[in-house]
């Protein structure tokens, strides 16, 4: 595949991510931080995020195991995770996090559990898409 085609592909994937609401402005901030000193900055950050997210997700899972769950603790854990996902501009993930917190406030365990599934799902989807994008970007670098 020639570079131009790959470049276009990369650009297309990237544009989609924004258009479809997977990513927000923060991602652009990360891109702007990328420079010669850190040529793979964005990817490094995303990797770091996903590695760390496992821990945070686990926290929430543990908290959800209790019945009834400690909503304050849940909210707290989710708050942490939400803050983390804001770091890469994970828009949809963040949205689900907010939803989750609203269920916490309403002490709705079922809602929390459901939304948590959504959160995890969005995480996976985003990861996949970003991987696609990074692959392309690397090939065109």
């Amino acid at each position, binding site marked *: 595949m020639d570079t131009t085609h790959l470049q276009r592909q990369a650009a297309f994937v990237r544009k989609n991510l924004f258009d479809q609401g997977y990513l927000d402005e923060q991602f652009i901030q990360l891109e702007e931080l990328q420079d010669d000193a850190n040529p793979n900055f964005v990817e490094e950050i995303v990797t770091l995020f996903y590695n760390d997210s496992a821990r945070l997700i686990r926290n929430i899972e543990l908290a959800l195991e209790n019945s009834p769950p400690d909503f304050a603790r849940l909210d707290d854990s989710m708050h942490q995770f939400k803050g*983390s996902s804001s770091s890469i501009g994970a828009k949809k993930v963040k949205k689900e996090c907010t939803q989750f917190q609203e269920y916490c406030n309403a002490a709705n365990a079922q809602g929390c559990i459901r939304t948590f599934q*959504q959160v995890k799902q969005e995480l996976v989807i985003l990861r*996949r898409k970003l991987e696609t994008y990074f692959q392309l970007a690397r090939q065109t670098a």
Partner: protein
Amino acid sequence: MECNGFNSPRSDTFPAGLRVLVVDDDPTWLKILEKMLKKCSYEVTTCGLAREALDLLRERKDGFDIVISDVNMPDMDGFKLLENMGLEMDLPVIMMSVDGETSRVMKGVQHGACDYLLKPIRMKELRNIWQHVFRKRVHEVRDIESHDGFEEIQIMRNVSDQYDDIYLHNGGDLTSGKKRKDVENKLDNKDFGDPSSLKKARVVWTVDLHQKFVKAVNQIGFDKVGPKKILDLMNVPWLTRENVASHLQKYRLYLCRLQKENDIKASFGGIKQADLSPKHTAGKFGLHNSINIQQDDAANGHFGTSDNKIPPHNIDHKIHEAELKGIVSMSMTKPKKAQIVNIPEPQKLSSSGTGLSHSWGSLEPDPKYAAFDSTLTMQYSWRDIQYQEYKPHLQLENGFRHLPLPAIQNHIQVNTLRPVPSTNTIPFNKERDKPSPIEIQPSGAKCRSQQIRQVAPTGNAFDLLSAQSESSMTNFHTSSPPASATFSMKNQGIDRISVTDLESNKGNLIQEIGEAFACIDEDLTASCFQGDCCSINLGFQNIAEVSPYLYDALKFDYENPCDSLEYPVIIDQGLFIA
């Protein structure tokens, strides 16, 4: 992480080289912020724990110019950390959080944050943080100029002159000459250094100025009042916040004294007024009080009948005034001399109770004092007991004329307190710009389980995702090759692997999926019913959002958005390792 030399000269290139300490338990944010700050040409040190940060700050006392910290730290409440950082190190601290709720922001400001940033943070927000450092420096210079030496004198004058003028409708400045002399004596003792500081412009609280002040206070509402607000309302360009703050304290004292006059008459409850003493900002009273504390320690034994419930922090508060430290130490070595010098000050009158009651009688009775006579008599007779050892001083006679009553009483209260070493906890006084140091109380409330933090992330990611795939609603799909052509090269191998896996577990998977979807079905149905009578609309909406997606998945006929679910675990591992 890195700790570059922190004593490098930066003045030429300011704000470049600004030494920033970033504290955040989120490693992703920490890295991002580090990069952002480096791009601003700042010197960055990162820290993942609040305690670490405090240790670091203590180790390198002057090693940082500014601290940026997240509000939600696992090992310590962010606000507490903020307080400690601001107080102990007197550094500007910026708070960060995902949560931008007004109450939180307000709390941050109340705890001393000079700014509150919302995550996600933009680089442009970080570019300007140097202003907080700069502002602090400017204020410090102002503070030093105003506190060093001349403010003490100014206060002494003001206390007697102005309070007399304003509250007791007394005119004249009869004792100012005497005071000036005493002040100079004191200066000699205290070694204030540059005597020319005396000649700096001082704030004279004229009746006019005070009227403006009172007007502003009433406008704001006495409960909500603060030096800054008053300053703004007064609209006096040359007046500083510090001036207003110290005046506000005096004003408060005065009002409280008026209010509690009856209490005083009823019992030896003068001590209640000690509550007011922590509010002295400039420490002018503290100066005197601290001296008396040294002297009165012996006298404390007499206070059998008094209510000694004043919390030690009242004195502590004053002692902690940085500018007073030298004074306190001086007074400790020369108590007698200090006493003599201070006696003419209105506050000092209490320390010679015996003398007072004598000289009080000898003075020409001023009509304005008549009303307070009974109070005074009571006060002083009480003090007679305590301060018998103190000799009356002739200077008292003159000093008496301009006795500011609030001052006396407050001073007396303080005398009853024993000196307290500097490490006690002190409640936070919101009016003050620089509250007294507060002991760090670790709050266990927000402690996360530490073990989890230590676990290797990669391992967890794998476990997480596989667990997730099994339990998640839309998961393994036994059909459809990847839709995206660009994946063909790399994915083929993986394709095979996953398909093989799937096939081998096909039976189980289908069952699992079936069960999963069955659950979902029930879930949805139940939710739908609930949705009608459910008070939370969001729940209903969520279902609405979820269902089309679900049903798409159910049909095994999904578009690109679902691509990623095909090869959840294995690919992820592979690609990210690369």
